[in-house]
């Protein structure tokens, strides 16, 4: 297939998957290679036949991406066939992981995701686990190229990016899921259902865990180092839409967090999860916070965000066991849960008696599995909206972005979720978007 040099890969793939498979088969028979077709390719022994599998590519496969890869690979009805990373060592490691799993050497590698999208018409979906700066743009390009997308959190760097992801998913009819996997875990589901079904009385406040670093971001540069060769580390590609800065190896080893250009602060780090969880629990998945009360500290701890239904969300750094905690407080009780809880903490043990039933009811009502990646693959087949759809994520991430802007401007803010703007506040409105470095633009 022709290599494309345009910034954006062609929206309409020249070959569809079936044609691609057919041509590959022809090519194979023309070569008359003595192929041995493994039984699982034909769907023997209970495996999904190759033609029915969801064909996947991975983009940006560092520690989190590798975790996702290990999580997805055991699913029987999918197959990873390509990986893409700006760093040679990560490309090689991801390829080796995939090849080991399938016991072959077939996984293709790409340095530039534009080449991956342009050349692999056979991909049904992609896993995007780059750093935060790339999530939205990579998702948008992938969806325009006809792929369904599982993107790590946060789904966007700005309110404008989130809106663009949502509009792209709608316009191109793509299934999109963000990796906010606690929306598909039983403890958190139980807490959500306690709130939703009124067991806690009328909810008046929810508490959302934020990470332990700072809300105030660094604009400094690390000391410049000589750039490695492009094949080893493609620094330009790594930066993507972000403002250029000189290379330093600390960034590419995960040290990009805390920099304004690359990160959405401690609020985005875990708020990307916990805000979505809180908003799901209080039925605010389709809106964002309307008032943001500035707190005079460096972290945002204690900030109060108010929703249109009157419920307040308090940002809280301490007092949890494990990561990504939430607490829902109602007139008749409360529930609190984070990753480190053997069982959710509740105001009265009576509430726990309904644990199994509430989770089971949720499963029956939503017809979703308690597995975030499985939900994504099921939705690829059914074309339903996944639990962490672009819509859900855009609205909860808008709350994250507005909270950050509140901290950065060091004053209270009002936000209009319908208009997606800060009324009469041009300064805040300018921070709804960031400049993007060509050709990495939406």
């Amino acid at each position, binding site marked *: 297939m022709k290599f494309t040099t345009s910034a954006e890969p062609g929206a309409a793939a020249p070959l569809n998957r*079936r044609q691609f498979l057919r041509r590959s088969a022809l090519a194979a028979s023309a070569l008359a290679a003595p192929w041995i077709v493994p039984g699982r390719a034909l769907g023997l022994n209970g495996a999904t036949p190759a033609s029915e599998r969801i064909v996947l590519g991975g983009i940006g496969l560092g520690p989190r991406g590798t975790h996702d890869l290990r999580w997805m690979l055991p699913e029987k009805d999918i197959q990873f066939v390509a990986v893409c990373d700006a760093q040679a060592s990560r490309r090689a490691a991801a390829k080796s992981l995939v090849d080991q799993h399938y016991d072959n050497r077939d996984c293709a590698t790409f340095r530039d995701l534009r080449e991956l999208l342009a050349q692999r018409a056979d991909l049904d979906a992609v896993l995007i686990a780059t750093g935060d700066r790339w999530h939205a743009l990579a998702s948008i390009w992938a969806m325009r190229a006809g792929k369904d997308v599982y993107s790590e959190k946060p789904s966007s760097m700005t309110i404008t990016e989130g809106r663009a992801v949502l509009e792209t998913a709608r316009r191109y*009819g*793509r*299934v999109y899921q963000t990796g906010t996997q606690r929306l598909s875990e039983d403890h958190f589901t139980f807490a959500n259902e306690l709130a939703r079904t009124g067991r806690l009385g009328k909810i008046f406040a929810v508490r959302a865990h934020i990470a332990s670093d700072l809300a105030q971001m660094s604009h400094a540069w690390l000391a410049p180092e000589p750039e490695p060769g492009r094949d080893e580390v493609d620094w330009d590609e790594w930066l993507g839409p972000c403002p250029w800065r000189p290379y330093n190896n600390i960034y590419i080893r995960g040290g990009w967090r805390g920099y304004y250009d690359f990160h959405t602060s401690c609020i985005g780090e875990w708020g990307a999860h916990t805000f979505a969880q809180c908003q799901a629990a209080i039925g605010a998945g389709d809106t964002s916070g309307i008032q943001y009360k500035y707190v005079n500290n460096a972290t945002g701890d204690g900030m109060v965000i108010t929703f249109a239904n009157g419920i307040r969300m308090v940002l809280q750094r301490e007092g949890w066991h494990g990561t990504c905690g939430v607490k829902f407080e109602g007139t008749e009780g409360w529930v609190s849960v984070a990753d480190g809880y053997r069982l959710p903490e509740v105001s009265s043990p009576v509430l726990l008696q309904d644990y199994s039933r509430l989770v089971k009811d949720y499963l029956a009502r939503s017809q979703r599995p308690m597995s975030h990646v499985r939900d994504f693959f099921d939705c690829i087949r059914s*074309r*339903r909206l996944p639990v962490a759809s672009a819509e859900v994520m855009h609205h909860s991430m808008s709350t994250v972005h507005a909270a950050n802007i509140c901290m950065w401007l060091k004053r209270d803010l009002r936000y209009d979720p319908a208009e997606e703007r800060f009324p009469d506040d041009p300064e805040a409105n300018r921070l709804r978007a960031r400049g993007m470095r060509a050709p990495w633009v939406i």
Partner: protein
Amino acid sequence: MNRRSFLRQIGAAGVALSTAGTFAADFPTPRKRVGLIGCGWYGKCDLWRLLQVAPVEIVSLCDVDRRMLEEAAEMAAARQTSKKRPRTYSDYREMLQEKDLDLVLVETPDHWHALTMIEAVKSGADVFVQKPISVDVLEGQAMLAAARQHRRVVQVGTQRRSTPHLIEARDDLIRSGKLGKIGLVEIYCYYHMRAGENAPDITPPDSLDWEFYTGPAPLRPFNRLIHPRGWRGFTEYGNGIVGDMCIHMLDMARWMLGLGWPKSVSSSGGILVAKNTRTNISDTQTATFDYGDLQVVWQHRTWGDAPDPRYPWGATFYGEKGTLKAGVFGYDFAPRGDAKSAVHREVVYELEQYPEDKDEKGLEKHVAPAIRRHLRDWLTAIEKRSRPVADIEEGYISTATCILANLSMRLGRSLNWDATAGRVIGDSEANALLLRPYRAPWAHPAAI
């Protein structure tokens, strides 16, 4: 043409061709206010026929395709006597919120029928809803319940019940006993109506709100094979050729023979021949509807020849004393052992009375008289607050029966139907499929 001469003309047509009488007498002013949801092919066909049979004012139009909507508004302004341009809406809820409509036509793709029809009866309108009434069985139950709860007259677009030559066949041949005991009815469609190409998925046109179009259905990438008009080829939006074509002939057989629910339904088939296309409905399928000592057997093929080229879509009634073939272009009756007494009847066109039909794009000219009669029947029922000939309950039975055929094909077993409970007997897997999950944020309507 002024209104009086228009009325006179229609009146003459009514006397000549219909027993429904003339609307000049039946429907005195004020003009009924009509709204249309879904301004595509049959939406416009039905709306322009309504203008021909009754003094209505087209007040509101709704479509998620802006271009289609604007075109329909221009045509409506040109065609209706007031020459007023109707209000246009992209959201049916906003249109119905006005609560200023007497009549609403629901002419969307199938996956939008239930929500729009229920909202329309809630708003106080009498409704004409296209067939099949729903994409799943429980939608149909909810629609029937809503029509009854809000006491609205709801006619379903199964207009074989209002086709003059078919009414004649029913009365003169079947009811008069000329066929004797009928034990088997074959119903069939051999039209090559499935897209034979494999167009790529593309960005939807700017004028189309793809998210809203998709609504409660599964979200697919846009493909020009879907819109306009091609959605029938995709299971996401309907029930394939069984939901599109079988329903007409099954409904006709039920109406002619006075049948209700079958005892059981079985079906098999799939995509057996025409595999290289994105359309995903079956290209070959048979279904048996078991009515005890009468079997109704469906067959469709979107490839190959029709056994009788004069009847590519129709029904054959086998009686002890003779055979009746009936279709949209006419009927043929062959008494056993008496070739001389065979009867052949052609469809009656009304192009002299309605010369504007001649050049109307997309209009099935042989069906236009049936549509007019079907609409007149609806309006008469509205005046009398009675049940129209294709009342929503009849539409529900025919629709659900066809959907059961598809469920049987999918499950690979026959389904025994409990008409009282509205459930499949002893088959929880099948009963779970009586409801298709809706895509959020749309919520599946429930029977009240």
